[in-house]
């Protein structure tokens, strides 16, 4: 899926995350902050990358600010953000 424009999804409330994406042309540039970075940072990064791969997104700049969201929430937020950017 192609990232055509900037898009945002989610919120900065507890148990949620805010995903902001925009187009770029040199692969996947991920920046991640999380209130549970130490324990879950690796796992969160994997979910984000897996979701992008599933959606066949090859180039984008993605910023995820996580407030302790569950895996399913992170996945859903990334998916919706990508869809919004493709619209």
């Amino acid at each position, binding site marked *: 899926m192609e990232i055509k424009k900037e898009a945002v999804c989610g919120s*900065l409330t507890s148990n*949620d995350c805010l995903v902001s994406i925009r187009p770029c042309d040199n692969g996947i540039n991920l920046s991640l902050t999380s209130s*549970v970075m130490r324990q879950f940072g690796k796992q969160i990064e994997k979910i984000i990358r897996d979701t992008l791969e599933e959606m066949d997104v090859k180039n984008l700049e993605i910023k995820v600010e996580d407030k*302790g969201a569950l895996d399913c929430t992170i996945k859903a937020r990334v998916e919706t953000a990508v869809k919004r950017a493709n619209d």
Partner: protein
Amino acid sequence: MNLLDLRERRYQLILDRVNKLKKSQCVIKANYPGPKKENIYSSYSVISAFRYMKKKIDIADIFFELDDEGFIAIFSFEKDAGEVKKIAIDYEKKSPLGPLVDIDIYGKDGKEISRQDLNLPQRTCFLCQAPAKECSRSRKHKQDQIENFYIETVLAYILSPTSSLKFVDFVLTNELMRRASLGTVTCLKSGCHKDMDFFTFLDSSEVLSHEFKKLKNLNDRSFLSLRKLGLEIEKNMFKVTKGANTHKGIIFSFLIILNALAFTDDFYSLTDVIKNYSKTLEKDFSNLLNEKTLMLYNKYGIRGARGQALDGYKEVFDDYLAFFEKEKDLTKLFLYIASKTDDTNLINRTSYQEALTFKKYIRERDLAFLEGFALEKNISLGGSCDLVAISLLIFLIKNNYKRIKEEVIGHGN
């Protein structure tokens, strides 16, 4: 809307409020697990936290929402956001219902104030004392385990021996937690009423929970004595509501039901005891009543609140209670009751025929139509609201018979 959409929309709403109102915002919501957070326990924990914050700081632009994320209170304040966050943390930590809510504070820049910002330790999980974030992130505890803890905490609070009957406040505030108004006051609307709103009901509920405590020391449990107490409670209700009739019907029926506990040994005899006890009310229909009430009785056999007591609240025990136990949803219960009962408030505001039509509409039409119709016709289904509260009270008594009897009547009787 699913939870994620609700959350995103609400976050946007808060940012919009910060921008528009130029004030810090406070959001209180239930810390309840799972996808459907709206229930009587979570609502009451939010109400309690809201009352606390309202007492502690000056608040403005109050806004309530009720959806699958539960009952949510949002308001602005002028005080320093960090100071308010400290007050909130104190409540979350020290009050019995504090652990059950999240009180989020957003500064004038729209950023949420965290405990870290104030150099305070992280919030701990109410089940195991580990950092709460880690427990919820790793789903360490099963959902039903958290739910049980939540419900037990609320029950322990509302049934604890204090100077008021907190479970009465619990029932009366929850009665307002309906997504359907049909002309009545709810947490979201004032319906067709100009003399009272949600806050009038909150104050009235609190007063009644104190007043009903007088039942414990009642030496004379005759109907006459109960009538006298009822008039006294009514007077004190009108004092706080500045003359608005919030709970007159409730005072009547709650006094009869709660006092009947003195003459029962278990839940199942309650309805018959009420029936026998209320027999005196039959005499009212021969002379004491006002014209309207007598007309309804003579023409249609409708006896209103008196009739419900005379029947031992049969419709509640036999029908509404089971409906609520199955659906666990106050909005559905309210609509169910409204479609079945002869609501004298409704009949008095319209006519018997129109009331029948409206009851038929409740079964057939969607909520938007019903709300519009109620407002246009200036209808208010107060009688159905009373039955929602009575059903909730009976529900609580059924599941906590001994504790409630002890609180209301005590050992002596």
